[in-house]
């Protein structure tokens, strides 16, 4: 586990001076969609919180409910999806918000960066105007002021000749530039919480590092909290103070970053860490977790079909999500027994 130790060394530790009440406190968050064979729970009973200035990483495979969790925080679950539970953000429960309240909140208090900056920007509107729009909406700037501020924002995310770039359309920018512009747009109103949904997945590795650096710098400047979503545990390890691992709509392990890497308890987390290629080791084949996410399992542990340690009990009853060490939660029958 030498590689894991390196990751631990790189992981960010939770700042000791966190304020007593977290910025975001999610309790029993469930997202249900109508399905052909009755309602399907895409996200099931999530509990987590993010302190001010802290980054939570959410990790899991495609389709595990990561993105749905983020959309729920913005009230953007569409297609008949229903959100239950409580989302306590800065003292108010977002689940009971009206459409009007949501529109006040989005872009101002909670902003989101999407995975694919090409499709996430309006192709027929200049980048500067797309950024200015959010300022006009929330800071009541005039169109002229907003355009001017947009240029400043583009400069602040490291885009060269920002005044000219503001006039450009998204297709005229490179992938990295577009993602920088997306970040400028998301940070325009200095939100308290930034949701970053795979912000670097569509980018080259060198650009990835730049974008991550940029996000962390801006986070320190603005004392902003980040919910960082990725399928890539290595990327998350670089930015997150704590990490929640999701599998099939549920949290299977939730712990401070260093703790998670030093002492991964859930077999799925262990598998994810094992899949990270170690540059110091020569291997013939990279490790893969056998099988794939099986949907439609309603009884027992959802990971049981892929778990090397699963037994009859795992297939019969669903494990509780319990705190096994301070701040370290896991849902597995095999832990502690």
């Amino acid at each position, binding site marked *: 586990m030498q590689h894991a130790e390196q990751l631990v060394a790189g992981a960010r530790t939770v700042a000791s001076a966190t304020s007593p009440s977290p910025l975001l406190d999610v309790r029993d968050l469930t997202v249900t969609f109508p399905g052909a064979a009755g309602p399907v729970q895409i996200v099931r009973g999530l509990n987590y919180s993010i302190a001010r200035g802290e980054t939570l990483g959410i990790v899991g495979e495609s389709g595990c409910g990561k993105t749905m969790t983020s959309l729920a925080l913005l009230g953007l679950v569409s297609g008949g999806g229903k959100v239950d539970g409580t989302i306590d953000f800065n003292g108010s429960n977002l689940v009971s918000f009206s459409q009007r309240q949501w*529109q006040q909140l989005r872009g101002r208090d909670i902003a989101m960066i999407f995975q694919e900056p090409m499709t*996430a920007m*309006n*192709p027929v509107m200049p980048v500067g105007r797309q950024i200015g729009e959010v300022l006009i909406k929330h800071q009541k700037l005039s169109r002229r002021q907003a355009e001017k501020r947009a240029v400043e924002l583009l400069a602040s995310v490291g885009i060269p000749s920002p005044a000219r770039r503001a006039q450009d359309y998204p297709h005229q920018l490179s992938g990295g530039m577009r993602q920088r512009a997306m970040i400028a*747009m998301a940070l325009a109103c200095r939100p308290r919480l930034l949701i970053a949904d795979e912000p670097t997945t569509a980018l080259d590795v060198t650009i990835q590092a730049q974008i991550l650096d940029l996000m962390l710098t801006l986070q320190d400047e603005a004392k902003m909290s980040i919910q960082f979503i990725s399928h890539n545990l290595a990327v998350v390890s670089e930015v997150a103070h704590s990490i929640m691992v999701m599998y099939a709509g549920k949290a299977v392990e939730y712990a401070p970053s260093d703790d998670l890497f030093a002492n991964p308890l859930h077999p799925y987390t262990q598998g994810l860490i094992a899949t990270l290629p170690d540059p110091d080791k020569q291997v013939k084949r990279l490790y893969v977790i056998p099988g794939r996410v099986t949907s439609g399992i309603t009884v027992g542990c959802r990971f049981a079909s892929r778990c090397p340690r699963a037994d009859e009990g795992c297939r019969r009853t669903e494990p509780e999500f319990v705190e096994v060490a301070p701040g370290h939660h896991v849902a597995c029958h095999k832990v502690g027994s």
Partner: protein
Amino acid sequence: MLRYTVSRLLQAVLVILVMSLLLFMLIGLMPGDPVENMLEGNPSLTPDTMAQMRALYGLDQPVYVRYGHWLYSALHGDLGYSSVYFRPVLEVLGPAIVQTAKLLVATEIISIPLAMLLGALAARRPGGWTDSLISLFAFASISLPGFWTSLILIIVFSVKLGWLPASGTPLMGDASLSEQIVHMILPVTVLTFFHVGPLVRYVRASMIETLNSDFVRTARAKGLSESAVIIRHALRNALIPMVTVLALGFGSLFSGALVVETIFGMLGMGKIIYDAVSNIDFNLALVGLLLATIVTLLSSLLADLAYAWLDPRIVLK
């Protein structure tokens, strides 16, 4: 952009030349000829005089010679004489073009915004009751035949209520503007109703797709109101694929408003072309059909320019 437009216009000239030859030959293939038509039922006519007449009009010559003659005079501004109206072709077509242009422009000015509004409303909640109502309207528009709608409207508004005239053109030559507008109401209504249904369906489909796209989600995530999302972000993107449909629709309306023109007694392009063809008015039919070709070509050029204007990703070369 200018270079593109000029080269497209040159291409259009070529297409018009080819079309004129094709139309010339096609009309020549029709049974009967102008001489027969003109002198039909004249008992004192002998086959000899018929042949003389044909020679006089040059109808005994091969088609390419005749086409050459026609093209030569056409390029010198002489488009020939209408054998039905006994006037120069241009004199017959002039008022018809004006008539059709009024009808079409009024129809498009009403139906495009109407289709955008209804399509966008329907797309907001697919399967909802607004959507069902609008779809019902669209299907009625697509399915109900134009002559039937025209007659029903005439019965209701002209015969029963007496609010509107049953004819599309004022009887007096120099009618006031308001009178002209009153006469246009029923024909424009029928044509709009006929035209708007398919457009609504297209806008709806395009809007549903656009509203599900990532950048619309981004716009919502910025806190924009739903109407700002639709008007500022979705509509323009949804309109891009609509441009072709609109351009083709304009071309087909130009010569295809026949039923409405017939029922409301308007001498528009559709009616003129139909009459010219059925009476073998060679010159009139040829020029009328060529005009329809030109309008279609121009509207497709306009469509391409509109694409470039709506979508910055498209660069015309």
